[in-house]
């Protein structure tokens, strides 16, 4: 295997192919503090891309309930336990000396899905990737009955009567997922036909349907289980990143050729999603563009974190972790950057607060933002996760978003807080 640099792990790692990088990379941030699983994104994707025969159980975008659910069922718990078996007690981070550019989360000292595979030797040699093929039953019920610990149908006033398990305290959260269009995709590394490729212009990972023979090695190799097999065509399929929209080639939506966010991002009513393209340097690092909202949130402020970076694929989907979830669980899912991210998000400074308003403000991909400074309008007490109360300063700032052609497309202004008081206490007014 070749040696490639994975900045999320803070070190070089093994990968079946030599390191090569696209000019730009498709990336996104999901703020899961806001997601209540309305599934609008799921249905938008389904009705656009996977509505045909053979695609019935195929959900390129899904929203699952954590910690109890998953699509396919328990995908992450299964893979984590496979890696733990391959490297007992060794799957740990050394967060000792973070370095913003080279190792922002410290160094992962365990084994990735590629490294753990090197010791799994079969008749055909060492495996490329450690993974598993989910059973048909595991794909069948995306987010059905996942909200209760016992897995039964939830109804008001009752969780489930079939078992005597004690019910959990409700700290769960909803995890929206699409393909992460990884820098080092597990699916690509596992494909024996070299049918999977990463587009040089935007880093979107696609399957060449003419080369695919349906061996399902990609389904096995993708740690996030975002490649799905289609029985009636005997090929695998996956999220295509709505590439016609990213290319700006939709004549109705983008007559001037400006890239538009994907379907799932564009329809998000909860404003949890922000998607874009980041510039990538030859060595794979993101070009320092702090004026790009994605670069700002991921690299400059590190408030958005990759999901399961320890798998080693360098996923390009990032998440603002939910504040109420126990830290041990979040550390396992998002790495050592969790504490810093939650600390910042719980009481954002004026710049971060402004950038957070760009989520789903409109549908064009934003390449740059600018903030017009306004006067201070309020001080608001905010309870931090530690219980400490901090004072958040609010300013009458306006954040402006610009598209690919540096044309202003949206501006969001923060206004003075409105204080509602019960009417009966002010009955003496005229």
């Amino acid at each position, binding site marked *: 295997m070749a040696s490639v640099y994975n900045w999320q792990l803070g070190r070089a790692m093994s990968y079946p192919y030599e390191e090569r990088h696209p000019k730009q990379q498709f990336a996104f941030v999901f703020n899961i*503090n*806001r997601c*209540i*699983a*309305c599934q609008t994104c799921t249905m938008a994707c389904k009705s656009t891309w996977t509505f045909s025969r053979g695609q019935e159980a195929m959900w390129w975008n899904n929203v699952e309930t954590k*910690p*109890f659910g998953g699509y396919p069922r328990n995908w992450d718990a299964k893979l984590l336990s496979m890696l733990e078996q391959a490297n007992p007690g060794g799957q740990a981070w050394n967060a000792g000396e973070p370095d913003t550019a080279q190792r922002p989360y410290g160094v992962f000292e365990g084994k990735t899905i590629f490294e753990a595979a090197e010791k799994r030797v079969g008749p055909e040699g060492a495996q490329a990737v450690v993974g598993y093929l989910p059973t048909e039953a595991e794909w069948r019920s995306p987010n059905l009955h996942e*909200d*209760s*610990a*016992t*897995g039964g149908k*939830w*109804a*008001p*006033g009752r969780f489930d*009567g*079939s*078992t*005597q*398990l*004690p*019910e*959990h*305290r*409700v*700290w*769960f959260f*909803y995890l929206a997922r699409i393909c992460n269009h990884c820098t080092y995709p597990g699916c690509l590394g596992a494909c024996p036909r070299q049918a999977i490729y990463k587009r040089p212009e935007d880093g979107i990972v696609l399957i060449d349907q003419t080369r695919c023979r349906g061996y399902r090695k990609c389904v096995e190799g993708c740690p996030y289980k975002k490649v799905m097999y289609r029985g009636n065509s005997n090929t695998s399929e996956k999220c295509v990143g709505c590439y016609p929209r990213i290319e700006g080639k939709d004549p*109705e939506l983008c007559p*001037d050729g400006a890239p538009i966010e994907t379907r799932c991002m564009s329809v998000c009513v909860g*404003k949890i999603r922000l998607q874009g393209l980041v510039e990538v340097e030859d060595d794979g690092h993101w070009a320092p563009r702090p004026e790009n909202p994605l670069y700002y949130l991921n690299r400059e402020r590190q408030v958005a974190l990759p999901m399961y970076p320890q798998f080693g694929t360098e996923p390009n989907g990032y998440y603002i972790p*939910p*504040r*109420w*979830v*126990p830290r041990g*669980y979040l550390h396992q899912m998002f790495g050592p950057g969790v504490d810093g991210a939650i600390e910042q998000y719980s009481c954002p400074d004026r710049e971060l607060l402004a950038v957070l308003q760009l989520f789903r*403000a*409109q549908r064009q991909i934003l390449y740059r933002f600018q903030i017009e400074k306004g006067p201070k309008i*309020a001080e*608001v007490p*905010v*309870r931090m*996760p530690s219980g400490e109360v901090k004072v958040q300063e609010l300013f009458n700032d306006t954040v402006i978003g610009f598209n690919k052609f540096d*044309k*202003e*497309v*949206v*501006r*969001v*202004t*923060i*206004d*003075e*807080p*409105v*204080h*509602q*008081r019960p009417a009966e206490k002010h009955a003496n007014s005229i």
Partner: protein
Amino acid sequence: MNDATERWVEKVHPLARHAAGDDPFELLAHPTAGDPEVMLECLLQEFLWMGWGTAELIDLFRNPGYPLLCMLREHYGEESIRKQIDAFVARSGVPTFRETLAEPESDEIAERDEPALVQIAPLC
């Protein structure tokens, strides 16, 4: 076995049986510790700051389509949630965010060509 009562036991419906530790179909998860109050406060802050009003939020908590919010309502009761919303708004107010989309310039609209028709199947 002389006593007839020992030979007769109550019938137990399968639904009432205790879950066994090695039963993979029942033990899908285990209970976890956590504080639903923090969760509720975080969710209220997110939605109030996005501009949701008290009535709209309460409706959301009543909607069985959103089990997370419904479970919190069951746990605390509607009145308690309403009080928490009022307390939050009284404490910190609700900042509003004014959003303005840039309108396309008028000559740009006029110049926009109709999309070309694309033949997607061979002509018969």
